[in-house]
């Protein structure tokens, strides 16, 4: 019995089961068997993900270096394809259509517009959602009667399919719709650039702020009440408590929430595609890819690879420089 206590601590350190007597060697062996077990258990998931994600992506990259079959507008001949080098990328990034600048109106000429629209939507929606979500989270963190009703209600916009959200707000923003009547306006919401953009932004904020609020709320609930009590005792004002305690302590959860939302917003498709069909400068990169698919796979593959890289770079910046440690948060041990 006297060996029980050290054996336990050691067992915990090596994450082995408790009733064993782990000497150093048996702990190592345990690690090896656990490794084998892990690879067996993980194999189906990793193989399936390789088939449904890595294979198509590698395929897309290969496609992006091939010529699209079709009429060559310069010569009038039918081109069968073949290696294209970086032509498909130049087509989008340098706006080159068959060696000349892409004429306005073609899909090629819309690339930089779509890029800036995508980032505009992502930055504005995520900024609004963060502020609004933070506010909602602070309210929901308070103790009051009916709190669970509010927490259930915020799940409603989250659960509604985005396609339905798009149609719902399209109706709300119709010319004779409730939005114009409520505010005594006569705005053609989906008919011109800025109203259309704001209609999409408002719909997106409605739909996804709850997700943001719940993630921030979960972060807020990890802050012990005693910290606030202590600050109050020390005479910190409400604003000081917010900036000195709430913000720094909720920061890890907040950064992860912003990262998730940012990556989600950069691939925005459903709302603008259904509400405006990408008209009035609301075409995002995802919409441009989909528009391009039927005009040429390989060119679309190049564009989707660019989109993927852009999102990857943004994710990298967030994780590397802004400290959004999503993986760390997910792998660190559970109960705290």
């Amino acid at each position, binding site marked *: 019995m006297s060996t029980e206590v050290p054996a336990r601590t050691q067992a915990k350190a*090596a994450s082995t089961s408790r009733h064993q007597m782990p000497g150093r060697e048996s702990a190592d062996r345990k690690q090896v068997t*656990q*490794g084998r*077990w*892990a690879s067996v*258990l*993980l194999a*189906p*998931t*990793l193989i399936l*993900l390789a088939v449904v994600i890595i294979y*198509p*992506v590698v*395929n*897309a990259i290969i496609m992006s270096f091939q010529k699209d079959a079709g009429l060559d507008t310069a010569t009038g001949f039918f081109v069968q394809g073949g290696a294209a080098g970086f032509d498909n990328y130049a087509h989008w990034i340098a706006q080159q259509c068959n060696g000349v600048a892409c004429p306005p109106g073609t899909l090629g000429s819309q690339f930089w517009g779509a890029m800036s629209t995508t980032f505009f939507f992502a930055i504005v929606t995520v900024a609004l959602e963060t502020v609004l979500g933070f506010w*909602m989270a602070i309210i929901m963190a308070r103790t*009051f009667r009916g*709190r669970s*009703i*509010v927490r*259930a*209600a915020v*799940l*409603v*916009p989250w*659960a509604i*399919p985005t*396609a*339905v959200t798009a*149609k*719902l707000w399209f*109706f709300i923003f*119709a010319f004779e719709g*409730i939005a114009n*009547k409520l505010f005594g306006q006569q705005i053609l919401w989906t008919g011109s650039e800025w109203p259309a953009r704001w209609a999409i932004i408002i719909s997106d904020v*409605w739909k996804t702020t709850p997700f943001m609020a*719940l*993630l921030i*709320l*979960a972060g807020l609930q*990890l802050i012990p009440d005693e910290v606030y009590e202590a600050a109050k005792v020390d005479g910190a004002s409400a604003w000081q408590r917010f900036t000195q305690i709430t913000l720094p302590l909720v920061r890890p*959860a907040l950064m*992860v929430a912003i990262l998730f939302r940012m990556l989600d917003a950069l*691939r925005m*498709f*459903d709302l603008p595609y259904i509400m405006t069909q990408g008209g009035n400068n609301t075409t995002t990169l995802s919409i441009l*890819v*989909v528009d391009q*698919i039927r005009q040429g*796979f390989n060119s*679309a593959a190049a*564009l*989707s*690879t660019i989109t*993927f890289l852009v999102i990857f770079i943004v*994710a990298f910046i967030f994780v590397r420089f802004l400290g959004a440690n999503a*993986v760390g948060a*997910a*792998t660190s041990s*559970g109960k705290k």
Partner: protein
Amino acid sequence: MSAATATATRTAEIPVRHKKYDWGMTRTYIAAAVILIWCLAPFYWMVVTAFRDVGYTFDPTFFFTHVTWDNFATVFDERLGNHFARNLLNSVIVAGITTIVALVVGVFAAYALARLNFRFKFAVMGFILGASMFPGVALVTPLFQLFTSIGWMGTYQALIIPSISFTLPLTVYTLTSFFREMPWELEESARIDGCTQGQAFRKVILPLAAPATFTTAILAFISAWNEFLIASQLSSDATKTVTVAIASFAGSQPHVEPYTAVMAAGTIVTIPLVILVLVFQRKIVAGLTAGAVK
């Protein structure tokens, strides 16, 4: 500060806090009401419009007026080219199979990530998280070409396979955080108390893991059910899912946007989800935020 003065400050503070409390409460209730209205009013408006006569589409009356079931009849009217029953069935098939595959495969991976110690754990988790954030368009282009060339366009598997790309990572990620929170020591205790490994699994682990798995299934099902981008590109008329159908709906009058019918269709698609979400509210919130903050 000595313990005595600390207690003194605390006691002195209580009446002050109590007075502030009531004023703060009023503001809290106003804020809660604003959140409730902001989240529920658009949804309420959809339901009201779904039950409103098409002639009063733009009637701004806030209550149920000119109530009719006609819009629901339009939704299912095959003569208008709407095949909503079929679309619903398609969505159930695609989202259902996707969820089952993701759960059956993902549960093993989640167990390994939550319970076992092995090299590259961090890398595997990173890969799975990255996969869940993967942009759908990057899959649509190569799959469009691949499925066209092997004749899979418009089949169920053409919708299920890409859906797995985002439901499986979500499933693994959520289940891992749930499993990590479970009291696995109980399994050992059951073994010590004389259970066989099988009994310990059936009587202890399974009942503990079932709610977590069920919650994860709901989250996976909702995300697959709500998918639009892939379904809009890779489905045919026969396999069209509800989200795609709603985006391109035919009404009783040609060339007029069938707002009321679309709202009726939206209501049909949304009500089951809303009920599911309200019933399992706590579990779903736990699942949504699992891993992101802990």
